[in-house]
C-alpha cells in the first residue's frame, strides 16, 4: 500500500506522523508545493487555543479533536524533545472591557491545568479599563521549529517528501512514484478551494507584526482582535479577521490599527524592534471537512480523505483531526475488506478504534 499526504503545513505533517504511527511499515509520501516559511502555519503564533466557534461534524467529535490534540502536544512538552519540536508552556491573560463571555472558553476550561478568573489586582496589570479577565496556562507550538522537527521524524520513519504542485487530483497519476497511491489524505488547507472547488472554504485574512520584545513573557488578549503572544524568536502582535479577503499584501492601515491596539495595552511595546509584518489567509470553513471520497485516477480507485478548513485553529486541532481522519480510513478499510470486526463508533472518547490493520 502507498499512502499519500498532500500539504506540508501543520495539518499535512501531523497527518503524516499519525499515519506512520498507525501503519509503521507502509510507504507514506508527502507532496506539497509550499514548505516552511511559505506555509500558512509558519506565520501563526501557534498558541493552543481553539476558538469557541470552532466546529467539527458534532460537538462531541469537536471536543475529542481538541482533547486528542492537547494530549499529543502535551506528551512532547513533557519530554526532552519539547525544545526541538518548538513546544513550550506559556501563560497569560484575556481581558475584556465590556463582555465577560469573551474571556470564557468551554474547550479550554475543561482541559488546561489552569483556567481561572482574574483577581481585581490582575486587572491593573495592563493599561486600560478592564472589567473582566481570565488567566490560563497553555502551550505554544511554533511551526518554525515543529514543521522541520516533524519532517525529520517523518523521514527517519521512512517517509518521503516530494516538492510538486497539483492542480487536480488526476495529476497524482502523472508522477513517477514507487507505486501508485491507494489512498491520499488531502491536507491542502486553502488550496482545497481550487483543488476541490469548495465554495464553503473562505479566507479569513490575518495580519501580524513580529517584534523583538524580550521582556514580554506572557500573552495578552484584549478588545477586540488584539493579541500579544511571545515566542522563541519574537513576539507576535495581532491581529485582524477579514472575511473573504484575498489580499496578501501588508496593509498599512491594519498595521497602524494593530500597533495602536497592542501598545495601548502594553506601552512597553513602543520600544519593541519590528522584525517583520506578515499576512496569512486562514482556511476558514463553517465546519472542518473530514470525510472520504473515492476518485478514479488513471483507472484506479483511490480514496481521498479530506482534512481541511481548520480556519485559525490548524495548529490547535490538527493532531486530533489527523487521528480522526486516519480512523476514518481504517474504518473504510475494514468495510471494504469485509473483515466483520466490530468497531468503536468514531465519536466516542476512547483513544483508538479497536483492532488495527497493518502490513497491507
Amino acid at each position, binding site marked *: 500500500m502507498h499512502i499519500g499526504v498532500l500539504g506540508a503545513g501543520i495539518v499535512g505533517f501531523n497527518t503524516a506522523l499519525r499515519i506512520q504511527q498507525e501503519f509503521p511499515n507502509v510507504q507514506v509520501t508527502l507532496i506539497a508545493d509550499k514548505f516552511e516559511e511559505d506555509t500558512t502555519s509558519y506565520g501563526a503564533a501557534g498558541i493552543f487555543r481553539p476558538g469557541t466557534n470552532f466546529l467539527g461534524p458534532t460537538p462531541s467529535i469537536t471536543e475529542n479533536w481538541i482533547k486528542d490534540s492537547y494530549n499529543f502536544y502535551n506528551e512532547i512538552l513533557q*519530554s526532552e524533545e519539547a525544545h526541538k519540536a518548538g513546544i513550550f508552556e506559556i501563560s497569560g491573560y484575556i481581558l475584556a472591557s465590556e463582555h465577560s463571555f469573551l474571556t470564557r472558553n468551554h474547550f479550554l476550561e475543561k482541559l488546561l491545568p489552569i483556567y481561572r478568573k482574574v483577581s481585581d489586582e*490582575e486587572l491593573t496589570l495592563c493599561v486600560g479599563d478592564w472589567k473582566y479577565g481570565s488567566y490560563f496556562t497553555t502551550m505554544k507550538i511554533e511551526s518554525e521549529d515543529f514543521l522541520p522537527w516533524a519532517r525529520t521524524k517523518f523521514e527517519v520513519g521512512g517517509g518521503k517528501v516530494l516538492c510538486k504542485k497539483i492542480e487536480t487530483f488526476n495529476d497524482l497519476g502523472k508522477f513517477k512514484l514507487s507505486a501508485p497511491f491507494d489512498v491520499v489524505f488531502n491536507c491542502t488547507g486553502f488550496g482545497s478551494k481550487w483543488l476541490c472547488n469548495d465554495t464553503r472554504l473562505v479566507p479569513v485574512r490575518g495580519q501580524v507584526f513580529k517584534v523583538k520584545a524580550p521582556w514580554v513573557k506572557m500573552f495578552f488578549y484584549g478588545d477586540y482582535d488584539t493579541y500579544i503572544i511571545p515566542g522563541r524568536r519574537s513576539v507576535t502582535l495581532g491581529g485582524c479577521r477579514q472575511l473573504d479577503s484575498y489580499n496578501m499584501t501588508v496593509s498599512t492601515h491594519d498595521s497602524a490599527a494593530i500597533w495602536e491596539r497592542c501598545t495601548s495595552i502594553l506601552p512597553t511595546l513602543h520600544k519593541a524592534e519590528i522584525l517583520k509584518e506578515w499576512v496569512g489567509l486562514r482556511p476558514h470553513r463553517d465546519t472542518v471537512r473530514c470525510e472520504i471520497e473515492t476518485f478514479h485516477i488513471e483507472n484506479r480507485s483511490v480514496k481521498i480523505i479530506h482534512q481541511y478548513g481548520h480556519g485559525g485553529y490548524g495548529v490547535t486541532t490538527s493532531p486530533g483531526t489527523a487521528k480522526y481522519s486516519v480512523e476514518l480510513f481504517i474504518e473504510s478499510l475494514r468495510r471494504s475488506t469485509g473483515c466483520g470486526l466490530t468497531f468503536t463508533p468514531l465519536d466516542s472518547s476512547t483513544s483508538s478504534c479497536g483492532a488495527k490493520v497493518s502490513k497491507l
Partner: protein
Amino acid sequence: MVKIAVVGGGIIGLSSACCLKRKYPKIEITLISEKFSPNTTGDGSAGVLMPYLLQDTPKDLVERWSKGTLDFFLSLWKTPEGGEVGISLIPVSIVTSNDEVPPYGVFGLHELTPTALQRFNIPTLRKGYSFTSFTCEPMKLLPYFLQEFTLAGGNVEERKVMNLESLGDNFDIVVNCTGLGAREVVSDESVIPIRGQVLRVEAPSVFQLIMCADADGRYIIPNQESVVLGGTHQENDWNTKSTQEDTDFITSGCFRMLPSLKDAVVLSNWVGLRPGRPTVRLEAEIIKSTKQKTFTIIHNYGHGGSGVTLCWGCALNVAELVENYMLENSKLNVKSLIQNL
C-alpha cells in the same frame, strides 16, 4: 543647605539616591561607590521580586518594603520604558516539601493541585503556588537609575569609602548602602556573605519561573536574554569562583524540574556574595564626624537575597527618615532663630 551622601552604588544605593533626588530635586546629593554596574552584587542576579534570605527581619517591614517596590515596578511596567529598564511580568510556580507560606503582594495567587505538583518531578513536594509577579534585572535597572540620578543633577564619585566619620565632615546625612561592605565600613560583623552561584543558559522557550522553596531547592528564572539556573546559599562562604560541584547541583535539579533544559547552551557561571544579616538594618544614627561635627547616618544594608525585592520600599523608608531629619532640623532652626532674637 543640606548635603546628602549615599554610599554604595548597588541596587540599594542607587534606588535610595534616585528616590531622594525625586523627592528633593534641589538638594545636593552625592553618590559615592567603589563599584558600579555591572560589577555590583545585584548585577548577576535574576532580579526576582520575592523576599529571600531575610532571616528575622520583621514580617510587617518586609511586607511594607515589598509593596513599595512592587507598586514602583508596576507603574514603570505600564510606561514605554518598562521593558528597557529590565522589568518583566512573569508566571511563577513555587513548590515546597514543607509548609512555606506564599510571598506577599503577588498577583492572582492560587494553590497548585496535586496533579500540577507532580509535573515538577520532586516526590517530596507537598504544596505549591502559582501567581504572576515581576522580575527586574539589575543589569538594566542600575544603569537606568544612574542615568536618572545624574540627569537630575546628582553627583557621582567613584572611590572606596573607608569609614563614614570622614564623610560626616562634609555631609549632613550619609545614607549607608554598603551591603557586605558594612562589615568594614561600620564594623558590623553581623553582616556575613551568603554565597550564591548561578548559571545563565540560552533557553528562549522558557516562559515561566519555577522555584523549589526547600533548603536544597533549585530555581529557573527567565531573564530577557538568558535563563538563570540556581542556586546556592552558603553562609560565610567568601569564594567568588564557581565550583563544578555547585554547577552539577544546580543543573541536575533544574533539569529534573524542566527536562527540555538539557539542550540549553551554558552562557556563563557566576557567583555573588549576598549581604546576609539577622535583620535588614534600616535606621537613623546620629554620630560625630572626624572633625567632631554631628551628622546623621541612615543605615540601609543587610538585604540578603532581597535587594531587588525591597529596593524601592526601603528607599521610600530612607526618604521618610530624611524627611524626619528635615523637620527636626527646621524645628531646631526656628528655635535657634527665636533664641537669637
